């Protein structure tokens, strides 16, 4: 591989790959969030691609995946699913194999917008799998006024006192404050981060909790009335129909979960074949249908019957209004510090 601390723009030298390699000599190991791919994927991949097999390891956060992939040497993983800014960091560390577009004809299925993502313009080392944004998820029956601004969370009205949550992971914790102040979610300017921190400190006494896993449950039980949420995790499909999602007027982010191929992989042809297979509309639409996330695959989205009002209706162009999160390198520590300050304060 390359030196591991070069900045993210260089791309590691590509291996020579053979388009007609004998896949039956290769076996695949992927790591992915639980429930993020169809259960029958291993069986179908084995049958379709004629590889020896596909093993699925699970990680439930990007952080855990990063630990496993970066700890040292060969993690044994061929294809990893991580969010965009983490793909960017992995690449900067020289751990990723550049994509060989010639081995992934299905890239053509993607929306054009999906090749313009700021952490990896042109999909040089990552292929997007799902995308979405962050907004306010709320109980239509418990709010007195429909939330439209991040300030509704940061300075909750009396009826929402101690009934709102923000996320706990540092970049999303900062997001509402940064956006409401009109700053970039990728800012590394100390004074902007300081202002965001002041705003959050002021908000803290009015919050129920910081939470990025169970906010949906809290809404359902009525413990919370408004929460900061990723669109797909906002339970708008709850049978009671009293939960809605809103992207605040100040704007938000665009997150992308991507597929990357590890430099250490010994099955790179099969890895490419797998990504190509996942971009098949039939497979890729499974994600949208089953995990309620939009997929950046035009052909796949067009296959779907999207119910009215579903979050899946959001158009790629609207999504691109959101600012794509990029890895900030050394500056990301400022966000760690911000989140610790808020929790300890």
């Amino acid at each position, binding site marked *: 591989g390359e030196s591991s601390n070069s900045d993210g723009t260089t791309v590691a030298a590509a291996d020579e790959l053979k388009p007609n390699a004998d896949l039956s000599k290769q076996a695949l190991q992927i790591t992915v969030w639980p429930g993020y791919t169809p259960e029958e994927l291993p069986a179908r991949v084995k049958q379709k691609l004629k590889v020896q097999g596909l093993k699925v390891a699970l990680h439930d956060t990007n952080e855990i995946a990063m630990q496993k992939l970066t700890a040292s040497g060969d993690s044994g993983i061929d294809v990893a699913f991580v969010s965009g800014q983490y793909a960017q960091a992995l690449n900067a560390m020289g751990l990723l194999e550049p994509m060989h577009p010639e081995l992934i004809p299905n890239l053509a299925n993607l929306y054009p917008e999906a090749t313009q993502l700021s952490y990896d313009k042109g999909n040089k080392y990552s292929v997007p799998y799902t995308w979405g944004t962050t907004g306010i998820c709320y109980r239509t029956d418990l709010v007195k006024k429909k939330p439209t601004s991040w300030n509704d969370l940061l300075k909750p009205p009396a009826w929402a006192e101690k009934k709102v949550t923000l996320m706990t992971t*540092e970049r999303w914790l900062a997001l509402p404050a940064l956006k409401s102040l009109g700053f970039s979610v990728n800012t590394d300017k100390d004074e902007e981060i300081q202002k965001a921190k002041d705003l959050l400190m002021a908000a803290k006494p009015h919050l129920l909790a910081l939470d990025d896993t169970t906010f949906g449950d809290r809404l359902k039980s009525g413990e919370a009335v408004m929460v900061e949420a990723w669109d797909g995790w906002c339970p708008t499909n709850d049978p009671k129909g009293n939960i809605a999602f809103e992207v605040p007027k100040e704007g938000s982010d665009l997150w992308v979960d991507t597929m990357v191929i590890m430099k250490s992989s010994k099955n790179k042809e099969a890895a490419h074949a797998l990504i190509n297979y996942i971009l098949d509309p039939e497979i890729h639409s499974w994600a949208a249908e089953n995990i309620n996330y939009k997929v950046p695959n035009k052909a796949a989205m067009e296959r779907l019957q999207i119910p009215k009002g579903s979050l899946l209706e959001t158009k790629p162009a609207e999504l691109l209004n959101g600012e794509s999160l990029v890895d900030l390198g050394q500056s990301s520590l400022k966000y760690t510090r911000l989140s610790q300050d808020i929790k300890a304060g």
Partner: protein
Amino acid sequence: MKSEVKARPVAPPRGRRLGAFVFLSPGLTYLLVLLLVPLAVVLSYSVFQRGRYGGVVYEFTTENFGRLFDPLYLSVVGVSLKIAGLTTLIALLIGYPTAYLIAQLPRRWKTVALVAVVLPFWTNFIIRVYAWIMLLSGPGLVNSGLKVFGLGPLELLYNQGAIVMGLLYSYLPLMILPLYAAIERLDPQLREASANLGASGFTTFRKVTLPLTVPGVLTGCLFVFVPSFGNFVIPEMLGGSKSIMVGNLIRDQFLTARDWPFGAALSLALIAVLVVLLIAQAWAARRA
């Protein structure tokens, strides 16, 4: 005591050396390979620098240790000490009588009672925490109950009290089991002798039972205090992430900030404190 005399040697030196080898070497070897070596690797990161995108750049620096003295970290240590200390104290106060009574049960029932102590923990941790949330949250069972009487709702969750409660719940068996093992071996005649000499139940406890079970008390306290101090899940789930403890700091470095060197420095500091505690514990237990 001045005239403290060494314990009687059990076997001649040759046997002792062999015994030391037979008993100590398997465990110590295991620890060396699977604990000390890995730990050394991780802790060695503390003198290097964080890579721009995470990972470790092998360039020497002491700056990670300098950062330890940031008031933020000191205040987190303060909060952690308070929470872990309180947890330990309560665990001891309710754990001791429980262990004591279990040790008095007829032989057959002892094991049953012990298993009853750990059985709740054979379910899943997260589920148990959720059960507490269900009980204590705003619309939860306790508040619903209070509402019937026109009371509440109380803010039972997402504060330091809830953290203490959650830690107590998680670590109580770690207090009870060592205490049980220590209390169980006490000769009941010693308690009888004490009562006979006019000591009340409490005095007997204070003067005879407690001093003779000091090693168990120390072990139990250590087992509760240290993981409480380093816990990061309970502060998030029951404390609503609104307070952090030392465990969260370390977790953040390794997982979110990907600042392994600083995480290693924090760990090293924590371990240094631990080692001091452990040696103090060993010293006190050996004296008892």
